[in-house]
């Protein structure tokens, strides 16, 4: 009988690694609750929130802060918070987007029964129509509703519009540069302020609602109409130039493109050229198409021989030998990707 040999290699068990930190996947899932964000993003979340509050705090006028998150009957909570305001006083409250959660659950389909159940338990979900009605009841004028946190994900792994990405090591590796790279943080803050804040509430899980204590039903209705209009903001030339500069580093460009891709899935009317300008927009579309081509080529190489058992020799599929060069041939000769500079 042979002696057992000690296992001198490290089997990759998720519960232990050779390094000083716990496995990335475990950490991410352990931290999820409806308010938490990944540790790499904590500083960013605070920065975004502070930025929104600062933008909506006019000097000389006091601003109250509050939250509707977790409140079963949030319109009543809103009215209660408003009750503390002086006339024309301003209030900024945190809330969660009903439209966003509905869109995420719909996108996940029937496989997310548990996700649907968890989503239903969340409180403080606000839709634009509900907000307009609650504002009317409480004699409040809606100043602004600011979706934010495109990068911050949803309340739980299953309920995030970035769910597929957040499960991956490559996304966590990307985020790990945020504390290291001020340019990357600068890009995210810019996108939040210039793009995300101006999109409908469906675009992110979190929002801040800015109201003032005065009656203005026409203004509230006008806001509701704008919300539902589907008109998407275009960046001014100056802002596009700044975004272009922020997107110059390769990894900032990856993060920017990935966020834009995710936003477009939730807001299909959001066009790349409105945000990026023609040159960068071409680059973005080339990038997206490159992923589609890789997927298509990988599937084609796997599927084209199906239905021909005679391709097997000694029980092995002989087309394994074709894959490697076929991929290069397809990219070079059929897609002609390398004929000129990209």
């Amino acid at each position: 009988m042979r002696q057992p040999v000690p296992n001198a290699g490290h089997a990759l068990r998720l519960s232990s690694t050779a390094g000083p930190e716990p496995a990335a996947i475990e950490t991410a899932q352990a931290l999820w609750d409806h308010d938490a964000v990944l540790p790499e993003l904590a500083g960013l979340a605070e920065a975004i929130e502070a930025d929104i509050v600062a933008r909506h705090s006019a000097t000389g006028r006091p601003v109250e802060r509050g939250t509707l998150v977790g409140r079963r009957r949030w319109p009543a909570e809103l009215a209660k918070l408003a009750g503390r305001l002086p006339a024309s006083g301003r209030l900024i409250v945190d809330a969660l987007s009903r439209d966003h959660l509905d869109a995420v659950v719909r996108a996940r389909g029937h496989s997310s029964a548990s996700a649907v159940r968890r989503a239903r338990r969340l409180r403080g979900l606000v839709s634009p129509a509900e907000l307009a009605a609650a504002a009317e009841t409480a004699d409040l004028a809606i100043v602004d509703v600011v979706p934010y946190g495109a990068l911050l994900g949803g309340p739980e792994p299953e309920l995030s519009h970035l769910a597929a990405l957040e499960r991956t090591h490559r996304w966590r590796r990307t985020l790990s540069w945020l504390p290291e790279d001020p340019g990357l943080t600068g890009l995210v803050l810019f996108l939040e302020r210039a793009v995300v804040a101006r999109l409908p509430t469906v675009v992110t899980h979190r929002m801040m609602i800015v109201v003032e204590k005065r009656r203005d039903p026409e203004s509230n209705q006008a806001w509701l109409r704008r919300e539902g209009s589907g008109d998407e903001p275009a960046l001014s030339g100056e802002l596009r130039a700044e975004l272009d500069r922020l997107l110059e580093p390769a990894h900032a460009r990856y993060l920017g493109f990935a966020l834009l891709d995710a936003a477009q899935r939730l807001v299909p009317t959001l066009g790349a050229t409105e945000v990026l300008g023609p040159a960068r927009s071409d680059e973005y579309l080339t990038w997206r198409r490159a992923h589609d081509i890789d997927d298509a080529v990988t599937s084609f190489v796997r599927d084209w021989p199906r239905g021909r058992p005679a391709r097997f020799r000694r029980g092995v599929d002989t087309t394994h030998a074709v894959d490697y060069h076929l991929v290069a041939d397809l990219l070079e000769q059929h897609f002609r990707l390398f004929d000129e500079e990209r």
Partner: protein
Amino acid sequence: MRPTAVISYLWDKHLGALDEFLAQFPVDTVIAPRAYCYERLEQIAAARGCAVVVLEELLPPGYARDREARKVLGALRAQIRGSDWSSSGVIGEGDVDTVRRIVRQRVGAEVPPAVELLDALNAAWTAHDIRLFVTTEDVIPLSKTAAAWARKRQVPSLHVAHSLALVDPYTVHAHLLTDVLAVYGPRGAEGYLDLGIDPARIVATGNPAWDDYASMRQDRDALRTQLLAKHGLEHDLPVVVFGTTWSAHLTALDTGDAHRRALAAFVAACADLDRRGVRFSAVVKDRPSNSDVGEEALASILAESGARARVVHTSEDGPQWAVAADVLVAVDSNYLVEAMLCGTPAVNLAGTAMLPMPPAFDGAAGVVEADPGTLAVRLRELIEDPDLRDRQLARFARRLEHYHVGGADGRAAHRVAAQMVRLAQTRPARRSLRQRLRQRLRHTRDVVVAKIGKER
């Protein structure tokens, strides 16, 4: 009793693991394809008392590849002729006849050698009791075929990664054919885990090809002196080494022009630093396969850039330069992990080889990220600021294990060998006739279900 055997598709650089394996698990024969019957393999086999058999020589005399491959080729050609690919998404755009031609050409070139290989492997199987299949990669045509055969035959199989997958495995890389994949560190598993491959199939062992760094990194001063003398470089100037890259054209995310673009970015950064009066020596460490083209490319780029400084071009001493350099620059490359192993400050040049993608290193690893536009500044910081260098090296020390298990302990070959022994011992024990019949029936049922359930 058939002689016991191991089938080796290991590259020369990984043979240290085979050596240690054979010390613990003797076999009668090592079978390897001719291309992998290295001198070192012969030496190891001789020392461990086993014969070396060239796989191709197991084919019967008079074996006629083209005749044997005829039926398979016929079936595949019929498939190509009869398929309608015009509506298969992106593939169906443009000229589908081009696709047909491409597939037909590749089938004609690659399938007959695969048929021949499978027949040779079958001959090996008949004549030997094969305990293990081990390979350095499972991507190029014949290695992939052999790995698939081993899995089909239930020969325990190990793929020792040929590199740390710093770029996530795309297209041709996006699979695991063998039972187990040995990666260098948890970082090397990330791309495969993201694909959904079962973590139980991945082990982290370190890279046997890097075991020599354990001793080489102690010899920094001597190596540095030798290399500087070899190339006539000044001893008191810091040396910045650039490792070149190349475009494999295996993903649509490839810019197609990585070698020239990255090299041009490095030369431009050197020229910028020269203009600012930063003094250093520049070395371009090219790949041996690039060497003739590489020297010309460098010369033409230098001429275009108007850079005054001399840039040494070499294709030798890769590991020695990793130890001796003051700063090492490379492109999403394992050379940067070697720099971590050696304690050499490192810069990853992004934005030349690939379209925008996730970073190769994590933020805490200590490998500096640069783009063509920022490379000069990043190099200057590392050349001129010893505290920054120390901080980066301290990060290396903390994160090295994530990239390379065992750090620089030089025992990766030992750990890979342990995996090989573990696998070689898992071959099912001899079964009784009743057990073998039962297995046969189960297999038949599975095949029937599979045929009904899905396309074969």
